[in-house]
């Protein structure tokens, strides 16, 4: 499979009163055609910041300061305004984390769908736009006649589904879903992800999936990237990342998560709290909280290294435990 997206050494800064905060620091990864890549990590580690960068949506005080984002071989950072406008939604669309407040309160759903079609010249009449919008609503189980309602007439979960339907409107090559299902109950959540999965199989687009629900992520994704304080610390196939974590943070993250089937098991968690991005230490950012940290970890910053067989990890002392053999591991049953 070839790469659809290739992100190289991406850095995103927020200019604040206290100076520049580097929210995403030297991150590289790729998304293959038809692949679902997951992105996990504690709140504030920079997941949404990466998602925004992939559509070049950052506005001051945020800016992409370094790196390149190759989409189908072309660097979107070089796009002109008009190229960028055409690229957005047609090539990459996004279900925003704040899906609830993503709909314009004074326009009907129909007119917000139509704006998409109109901006990309895909329909010639309003009726045609409405037809297509109705089909899309059906995918997410919203009755088509609700098309002419206003956003406030929908429940939070319905709004989220409307946004998902909108994101699918132009059959993009990359669909970014930033915690798309937080307002949905477990059943609906799975149904919708199942739908997205089927559509993905049908049309062959790629997905960047961000969620806090690790078990969902493991189930849905092909590969998972783990982020810590603006750094990508590990990328591995989802079947292995929790069962055979190499980075101590991935290990901790897996341990912080209760098993789905609920047998009582000690949740270990990760001591300490996330890094203050205003004071980034010299060495590994996780060293402070790591059970395995050495002197080297506090002085040298580990670089992402490729392990042929498995993926990428940025750690001086990658773990070599295999949970699946050792014990009834937290997430082994999910694989």
């Amino acid at each position: 499979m070839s790469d659809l997206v290739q992100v190289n050494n991406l850095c995103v800064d927020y200019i604040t009163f206290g100076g520049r905060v580097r929210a995403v620091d030297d991150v590289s990864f790729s998304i293959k055609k038809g692949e679902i890549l997951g992105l996990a990590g504690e709140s504030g580690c920079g997941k949404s910041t990466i998602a925004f960068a992939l559509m070049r949506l950052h506005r001051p005080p945020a800016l992409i300061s370094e790196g390149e984002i190759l989409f189908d071989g072309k660097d979107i950072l070089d796009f002109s305004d008009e190229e960028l406008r055409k690229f957005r939604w047609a090539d990459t669309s996004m279900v925003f984390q704040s899906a609830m407040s993503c709909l314009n309160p004074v326009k009907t759903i129909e007119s917000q769908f139509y704006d998409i079609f109109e901006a990309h010249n895909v329909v010639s009449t309003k009726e045609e736009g409405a037809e297509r919008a109705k089909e899309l609503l059906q995918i997410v189980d919203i009755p088509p006649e609700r098309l002419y309602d206003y956003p406030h007439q929908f429940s939070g979960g319905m709004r989220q589904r409307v946004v998902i339907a909108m994101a699918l409107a132009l059959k993009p090559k990359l669909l970014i879903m930033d915690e798309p299902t937080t307002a949905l109950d477990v059943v609906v959540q799975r149904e919708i992800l199942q739908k997205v999965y089927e559509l993905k199989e049908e049309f062959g687009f790629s997905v960047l999936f961000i969620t806090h629900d690790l078990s969902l992520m493991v189930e849905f994704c092909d590969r998972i990237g783990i982020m810590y304080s603006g750094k990508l610390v590990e990328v591995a196939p989802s079947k292995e990342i929790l069962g055979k974590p190499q980075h101590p943070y991935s290990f901790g993250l897996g341990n912080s998560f209760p098993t789905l089937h609920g047998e009582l098991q000690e949740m270990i968690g990760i001591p300490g709290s996330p890094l203050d991005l205003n004071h980034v230490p010299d060495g590994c950012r996780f060293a402070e909280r790591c059970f395995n940290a050495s002197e080297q970890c506090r002085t040298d910053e580990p670089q992402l290294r490729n392990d042929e067989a498995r993926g990428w990890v940025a750690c001086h002392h990658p773990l070599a435990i295999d949970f699946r053999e050792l014990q009834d591991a937290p997430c082994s049953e999910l694989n």
Partner: protein
Amino acid sequence: MRYIFTRLGFYFLAFLFAVTINFFLPRMMPGDPISSFLGRLAQSGGQITPETIAALEALYGYSTSVPLWQQFIGYLQSIMVGEWGVSTRFFQPVIEVLGRGTQWTLLLVGGYLLISYTLTTFLGIYVAWKRGTWADSLITVGSVVISSIPAVVMALLLYFAFASNLGWFPTGYAYDPALDPAYTWEFVSSVLYHLALPMIAMVLLGMGNVMGMRSNMINQLGEDFIVMGWAKGVRDRKVMFSYGARNAILPMITSFAMSVGAIFGGSLIIEIIFNYPGLGQVMFQAMLARDYPLIQGYLLMMTIMVLSANFIADMLLFALDPRLRTALD
């Protein structure tokens, strides 16, 4: 529909309330106008007969012999049928005097609202979009400085500079008295020419709205649906108007409704200084002449206009904000 009727009902109650105050206030003030009139009459050596008193009572709608509540009912009735008493300054029915002034005030204030709100809304949208550029600083600072000049100072400055000294604009009246009112180009252009300077003064004084619109717009631009608009590939202009401004004008309508009283107050000063024969002029002369029926009539007319403006703002908001529509209907 139900909403519209509730609002109408509400405004009717507010109107009744204002009328009630209008009725009782002068009656609670020490020295009713009739005795003060009689006093002046006596001083100047006039004859005071029972007929004089009866005539005066009829004129003022006052009576010493009829119980208060009956007076009140009578007052309400006569207001509803347009009998607002007779002006003691102009010796004409109050409603006629006010009617003459009202047309010019409506022209001035209505024109002002149209021009000022269009101008400041677009400027506000523009500077919010261009936030941080020199155009933003220039327009923002300029409009704040201009609008913070007191109305009297602004009006006098413009009047002396452009009407008295340079003579570019007329020094008074609503149209050239030599012309007969008719829908001819000559007459209409004369009206516009006389309207121009007071209108410019009011528009300048209202420039502060640019700041209001700017901050509304900046608030809206921070909303998630704006980002989504861009992400959808919607063109900038459309995001700006259909996503941003469309939402940012809603609070402007509310603030208009709240400031409409002040706008009429401002037009009063402008009319007096520019010698423009609107309601403000009428009020001014009524006050100088202690013309109580006219003052009362003026207050009533103001109440009607402010309430109507509020009602229009309500309806506008109702038409423009779907959330209000479903919540209230």
